[in-house]
């Protein structure tokens, strides 16, 4: 039996090609072996050894990938396809709703339910009906609490699931778990018909 091969140091200067304890089946030196033998060494030390070049290569490629990804996101936001303007859609008659009354509609066709609220004689607001917390449907309601009676506070949008409140004029969250404003549907009153003219996704 041949003497025990010297142990391979595990330090930074570990030889990358000294496959000393494992003998390839054909017995030829490692330099003459196919490359996969160096890529998949059987010896534990070589298997765990990462050369400086490989580490630098990995770091550089990963960084480049991150940079490319950032530019990709920027480019997509700058030159991404703009949503084509939606056609106006008649969603209600003006006299259909009392002041403070609400009605659901879908705009564009097949969308999630939207909520149209009449706030004044000829003023309407419309929002996506899904609460931005966990998608429960919102309803117009008066809020009590903080020492203010419900009748003194204006109408607000209420999500009954987890007691979330949104501002009726802006769609911003006022109380409860929601953190993001409601997507707004722009409405326009032409004569006695209320038209939905577009959807404004709030900036994240």
């Amino acid at each position: 039996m041949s003497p025990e091969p010297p142990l391979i140091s595990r330090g930074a200067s570990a030889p990358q090609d000294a496959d000393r304890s494992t003998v390839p089946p054909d017995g030829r030196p490692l330099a003459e072996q196919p490359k996969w033998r160096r890529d998949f060494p059987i010896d534990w030390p070589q298997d765990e050894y990462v050369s400086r070049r490989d580490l630098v290569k990995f770091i550089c490629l990963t960084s480049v990938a991150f940079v490319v990804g950032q530019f990709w996101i920027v480019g997509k936001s700058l030159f991404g396809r703009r949503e084509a303007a939606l056609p106006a859609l008649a969603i209600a008659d003006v006299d259909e709703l009392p002041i403070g009354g609400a009605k659901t509609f879908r705009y564009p066709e097949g969308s999630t339910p939207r909520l149209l609220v009449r706030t004044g004689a000829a003023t309407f607001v419309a929002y996506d009906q899904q609460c931005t917390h966990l998608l429960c449907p919102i309803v117009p309601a008066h809020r009590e609490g903080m020492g203010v009676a419900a009748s003194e506070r204006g109408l607000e949008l209420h999500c009954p699931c987890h007691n979330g409140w949104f501002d009726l004029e802006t769609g911003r969250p006022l109380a409860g778990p929601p953190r993001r404003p409601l997507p707004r549907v722009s409405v326009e009153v032409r004569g006695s018909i209320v038209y939905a003219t577009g959807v404004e996704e709030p900036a994240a």
Partner: protein
Amino acid sequence: MPVPATLEFFIDPARCIGCQACVQACAECDTHRGQSMIQLDYVDRAHSTQTVPVVCMHCDSPTCAEVCPADAIKRTEDGVVHSARKPRCIACNNCVLACPFGVPKMNTEMQLMMKCNMCYDRTSVGLKPMCASVCPSQALAFGTREEMARLRPSARPVNTFQFGAQTITTKVNMMVPADDGPDWVDVTAAMHEPTIGHQMLDDIFDDDVFGGDGFIDLLNDDPADA
């Protein structure tokens, strides 16, 4: 910590008495509790009580590691081939089929190949492997070469095996008779040899086989005498 280079493993099948102590001791280890990594093979069950303990031979170019597609079988610098690494092993059975000695076994429940690693947790700190520490006849012995030469003058260790066209050099030694023993062991030597009594199965209705009394004379290895 590597296994000390002076300590070697010696297997002497001629001393094996088939007591299964090594199997039980191996299965007691906490690293693979309940599952033995050593196998006790019966050589010719019908005619002999001879048993052979089979531990991993820890080859210089481990066939199991050569055929592993998942890069899971690794060998430490002291020459010990370890069990498949859990995160890498894909339970493909390549090593089980490829090993000339039939050492690796697939644990199908764990989807993991497990094999003898010469009790690395013990041998790497200078202790004997479990099997060698319990073997009553020291068919499995772990010690220095000088020790073995002193204790067994009539035997000599051989660590070269022939498997078809492949020459296997192992870390574990097989003891052969010192004077007329072979210099290398052919792993497949007996593969095509009919076992004693094999001719009985060729034609069981042959009158020569039925020794006239309606019983198959299995103990007779020459049908002409039947």
